[in-house]
């Protein structure tokens, strides 16, 4: 079952925070964010993951295979990956893209969210929704869409640990609860 909220590991989060500080000092937040996202997507393929996280190959060989990719990255990202190799924390690479993005978003007052709909919304509607939800949260909200036919109608927006339910399904649910708990005339 896919979860509506992305869960980042606390260890990865700490590494991402440190990397963000470094990136900010080097004035290269955008470059490094691109790098981390690239790293995470590279690592996500099963073949690469087996090679990197398996124990059949020595640390040096693994690093050497990584060199060509590393050379294309920002110098700070390079040192980050080398440090991960040294500390044997390679698993951090899987989630670093998401964690770094979250950190950047948090710093800039932006949050990601999911908008569940029955039919895809037009870009105009979506940005209107982003704005109204953002106003209630006091943040800039970036929504991505997902089609959930069970909603019957309306929208349901999930931003972090908040849920705005304006779907027909949610209302029917609420009505059901109220009807079940209202006393019967005797």
């Amino acid at each position, binding site marked *: *079952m*896919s*979860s*509506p*909220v992305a*869960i980042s590991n*606390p260890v990865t989060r700490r590494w991402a925070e440190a990397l963000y500080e470094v990136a900010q000092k080097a004035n290269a937040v955008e470059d490094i964010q691109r790098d981390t996202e690239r790293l995470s997507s590279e690592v996500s393929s099963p073949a690469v993951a087996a090679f990197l996280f398996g124990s059949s190959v020595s640390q040096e060989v693994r690093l050497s295979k990584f060199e060509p990719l590393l050379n294309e990255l920002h110098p700070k990202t390079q040192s980050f990956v080398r440090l991960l190799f040294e500390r044997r924390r390679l698993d951090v690479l899987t989630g670093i893209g998401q964690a770094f993005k979250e950190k950047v978003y948090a710093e800039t007052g932006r949050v990601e969210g999911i908008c569940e709909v029955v039919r895809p919304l037009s870009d105009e509607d979506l940005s209107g929704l982003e704005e109204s939800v953002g106003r*209630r949260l006091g943040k800039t909200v970036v929504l991505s869409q997902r089609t959930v036919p069970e909603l019957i109608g309306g929208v349901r927006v*999930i931003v*972090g*640990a*908040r*849920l*705005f*339910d*304006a779907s027909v399904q*949610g*209302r029917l649910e*609420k*009505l059901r609860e*109220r*009807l079940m*708990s*209202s*006393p*019967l*005339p005797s």
Partner: protein
Amino acid sequence: MDLRPAEVTSILEKEIEGFSQDSGMQSVGTVLSVGDGVARVYGLDDCVMNELLEFGDGVRGVALNLEEDNVGCVLLGSATKVKEGQQVKGTGRIISVPTGPQLLGRVVNALGDPVDGKGPLGTSEEDLRPIEQPAPSVVERQPVDTPMQTGIKAIDAMIPIGRGQRELIIGDRQTGKTALLIDTILSQKTTGGGDPENPSQVICIYVAVGQKQSTVVDIVKRLEAEGAMKYSIVVSASAIDEASMQYLSCYAGCTMGERFRDEGRDVVIFYDDLYKQALAYRQVMLLLRRPPGREAFPGDVFNLHSRLLERAARLSDEAPKINPRYKAGGGSLTALPVVETQEGDVSAYIPTNVISITDGQIFLEGSLFNAGIRPAVNAGISVSRVGGAAQIPPMKKTAGSLRLDLAQYRELQAFAQFGSDLDAATQRKLTRGERLVEILKQHQYQPVEVADQVMVIFAGTSGALDSILASDVREFEKQYIAYMHDTHPEAAEAIRTAKKDIPDEVKAQLKAAADVIKKQMGA
């Protein structure tokens, strides 16, 4: 239940009209792991301690561990309905139960949901109260001074309980602990004629923790048959319920009682039993990975019981002026917790904890029970630390020497087994003791009204019974009480309202009655 379609439509109409269009903001999280009745949830950013969570499908949970990146919660319902990755909604309210007079006569679970098949309770949103409440402060209380009659001679005479007191009932299994509670509930009928509307009627709340469901059914049936259910609430968290429900049920019951207490009523609550509650709490806390202490109980198991029992109180008449939470002053909540011991070991962890919290304890002993002394109260080691002030004066005067006489009797009894040559004084003490033990025996479900108790104990302590056989004492008691009711119906009231001792003319009547009955019985 018979329903007409038109009625259903009208309810629907009303509900739909009042239905708000607001799509409120909710706090949500995702289930990370679930098992053994606990779940870990990611998200729920602004979750508070003890918040009620909705897992969907009617399963609810309580947040108990707020950690850096997850919330540990216990499930109140079937864990098999909860899946990993499932959405969890925060309700934004501390776990609460419905309270109020609508609950009287009902059987509810730890969340206040009815389980007796009699339909919804009909309570409103305003009747919900959080199950964890602070206990009344020092200034909001007043000393215990009104008796809480249990209807059991041995207790009312020697270990008196006052309204607002906490008296522990402790003993092994099968020693009559629950029977004692049921008798106490039945006895409360005398306070207000069994009418819950009557302000002087004592409200009874029975919390069954980890009991067999058959036992709970038996109790409810018995209370219904005796007309005692009208002024009682049964909170049932039986052995089949989740451990979380079992440990929360005591607080739920207490909250229901507090509502009446805060409105100026007198309430008595029975926790049957706190040992099982501690076991349930231990289970939940170990699953939540809280560090175990002695006997693997968590470190706060003492506080678990002390904060519950502290909520028993006699409120001061001025309480509403101090704290607007109290609608009327002078109410009380008496707590009678039960602790089951294993093999009579009262020095085990939980029993010693609860003994130190309560204002006294009633020991029930298996050996006495088996010797036919029922209720099997061991008067020697049972105490009531505050109840003495709460006895009616004639009882205090009459029963004053009872404890001492019985203690001397037990001492001599041990001696008397060795030799047959006993002096007259010793013989007399033995005879007296034997008869006193006899008058303190009582049948189950037959509570005795306090004035009748005074009459019987007066007959015992004044020596009127010394000349009849010990085996005839109970027959004598029956006829003697009946005779007094017939010939001097005003005597009972005179005893109840007496300021000091039994009035002299009543004493004379009692003596005469004893002589008449003794003659009738051919002694």
